């Protein structure tokens, strides 16, 4: 039981990170109907920027942890957003009326280019950081097995919850969210009633990139290692999470992320760690067979 709860905590932490990335996929899919294949790389870029910010701050001699965290998060969100904005502007906006596959190929190309750009500029070696937040609390002990929650895990889960609540508010209640939902339903009609469609789509990419940057920063803190290749697998899993939850649905993305995190944690704990990626994909296939619209997605009606 103790082991189970420990894995539950680990899975939730991992799931929170996947959920944040998945939101970026689901929003972009909702608004322009394409898979933003480069989103995993955006997350990787966020992780790298947080490493670099950390290095700048420590060279400047700053060591107060809360300030360090806040600056890392903000810098990563800011600079990663610029990347998100540029990607949309350069690779996707010219293709908005093009066949769907063209945009997807452009996205795959962007993903390859970004990955190699980071490899060229930052080197191929793994970047390792000393843990910034250490320590934790022991919840309870059973048969000599301690169930521990680290402060970092608490931080990750609380920050993710706050961000997701804030984000839901943003989409549900604010003018920006209304514009976004309007563009999602019908871009031409939204433009006719005065919504600046280009700007709304740009904002969507910026917000998705900012959330991915938070995820990247947290992974940097959590695992302490970053390399240029982390974006691919995380991106694929987060997309799986978005599809699992029902693509286009925000609560679905969060739920899907947490489910993927839990599946991975439990699979590694009780079965084999080598096949944990297989587990996530197999469950995706099963869900798609029995519930093709995902868990919370609305069925899509095709019109002639």
């Amino acid at each position, binding site marked *: 039981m103790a082991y189970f709860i420990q894995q539950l905590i680990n899975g939730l932490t991992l799931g929170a990170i996947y959920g944040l990335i998945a939101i970026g996929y689901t929003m972009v*899919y909702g608004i322009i109907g394409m*898979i933003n294949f480069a989103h995993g790389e955006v997350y990787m870029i966020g992780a*790298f920027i947080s*490493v*670099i*910010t950390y*290095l*700048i701050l420590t*060279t400047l001699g700053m060591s107060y942890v809360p300030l360090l965290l806040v600056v890392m998060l903000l810098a990563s969100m*800011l*600079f990663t957003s*610029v990347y998100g*904005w*540029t990607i949309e502007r350069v*690779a996707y906006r010219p*293709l908005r009326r*093009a*066949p*769907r*596959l*063209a*945009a*997807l*190929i*452009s996205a*795959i*190309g*962007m*993903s*390859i*280019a970004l*990955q*190699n*750009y*980071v490899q*060229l*500029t*930052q*080197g191929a*070696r793994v*970047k*390792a950081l000393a843990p910034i937040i250490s320590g934790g609390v022991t919840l309870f002990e059973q048969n000599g097995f301690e169930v521990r929650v680290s402060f970092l895990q608490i931080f990750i889960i609380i920050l993710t919850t706050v961000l997701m609540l804030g984000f839901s508010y943003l989409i549900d209640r604010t003018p920006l969210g209304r514009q976004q939902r309007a563009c999602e339903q019908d871009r031409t009609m939204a433009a006719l009633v005065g919504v600046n469609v*280009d700007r709304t789509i740009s904002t969507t990419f910026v917000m998705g990139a900012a959330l991915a940057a938070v995820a990247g920063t947290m992974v940097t803190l959590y695992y302490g290692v970053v390399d240029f290749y982390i974006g*691919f697998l995380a991106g*694929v899993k987060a997309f*799986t999470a978005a*599809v699992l939850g029902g693509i286009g649905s925000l609560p679905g993305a969060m739920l899907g992320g947490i489910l993927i995190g839990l599946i991975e944690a439990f699979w590694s704990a009780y079965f084999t760690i*080598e*096949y944990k990626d*297989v587990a996530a*994909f*197999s469950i*995706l*296939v099963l869900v*798609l*067979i029995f519930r*093709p619209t995902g868990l919370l997605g609305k069925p*899509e009606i*095709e019109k*002639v």
Partner: protein
Amino acid sequence: MAEIKTQTTQSQQMPAFVRDLLGTAVIALALAVPFIGLKSDSQGVALELLTRWPLMFAIVGSVLAGRVLFLLFKSHRARPRTPQPQKRAGAKETVSTWGGRHTLIIGIAGFAFAALLPFLPFANRYVVDIGTTFLIYVMLGWGLNIVVGLAGLLDLGYVAFYAVGAYSYALISTELGWSFWFCLPLAGLFAAMFGVALGFPVLRLRGDYLAIVTLGFGEIIRVVLTNWVAFTHGPDGISGIPRPTFFGYAFSRGAGKTFSDLFGIDYSSQHRVVFLYFLILALAGLTNWFTLRMRKLPTGRAWEALREDEIACRSLGINPTNVKLSAFALGAMFAGFAGAFFSTRQGFVSPESFTFMESAIILAIVVLGGMGSQMGVVLAAFALVILPEWFREFEQYRMFLFGAAMVVIMVLKPSGVMGSREPTIRLHKRQVSDAQPEIAQ
């Protein structure tokens, strides 16, 4: 909307121009500072921060210069607006009909050149080797073209079938000792079976889901190949795979059952290379011929019809799942053939050769060439496989440039270099082919 913007800003053009450049400069700096200006370098244990400001300013400066040129070009082109479109439309039409009429001739000429290549004076071992690699990608491109170009199904895990073919031959020949010619159809059969097994549950789904499931399947195959050590030898791969024989006559030195002995010529290591080249040329030719014939059969017509409009097909009594499944399985079969060839050519297979990057390259070949165009596949394979060989000294930048080229080509020509997406058959002649219906339903 862009037109309105240029008109309103016409009066105050200079400030707009300056503002645009300032914006570009800010964006370029924000992009460049954390990655080009600063570098995290691991010296010993701890990470260190290095700076590369001169390089960064050089790059940002060239981005700005590029932007200036682009803006000048745009304002230069924006002015004379009215007379151009008609002229261009006419020009386009003649180009497309010219291409259509001469495709057959170009195809035959290309094939003849390919067949003569090993005997040309400049064809050393290196050239023939690259030609072989090129033809593998052409064959994979043609195989995937059935799935993506004709049936309109987006397959991001095509390399999985290639891997199945390669491992089928590697395992059967090393464990059971069966010959290449017997294993080749088996490899295709296994790959096709995997295609059916994967396609059956997921082909009912919409295009994007299919993309992600195939992507996942590709990863699963790779993970299984890496971790199932008892069966696949894991990450070490399988070595010592039998090389192909000339219908039982080996390409080796000495008398007996060898190729050189059979024809009474001196042994040369070139023989096997040339033989492999002709083998893949034949296999690729088979793929192309098969596809061209299929397009004239009801099944092939149904593929194209499904790509254009699934609902219409359903109401005409076509079973979408079965038709898609046939395209998926046939595409997989050709990947299996190519895989078996790959494995006999290399003599060694490992999961390393079957990463997502391979799938991306093959898909890029199909899409960049123009979906459904057989000639386009050849051109795109040439651009993606042969050109990087010429620029070997830029090895480091190769993948970066490859990705960037994919973006640029798509932005400039979204339908691919040779893309016209013409259905093979039409009831009525259409006058202008401007319609670009969406792929993948």
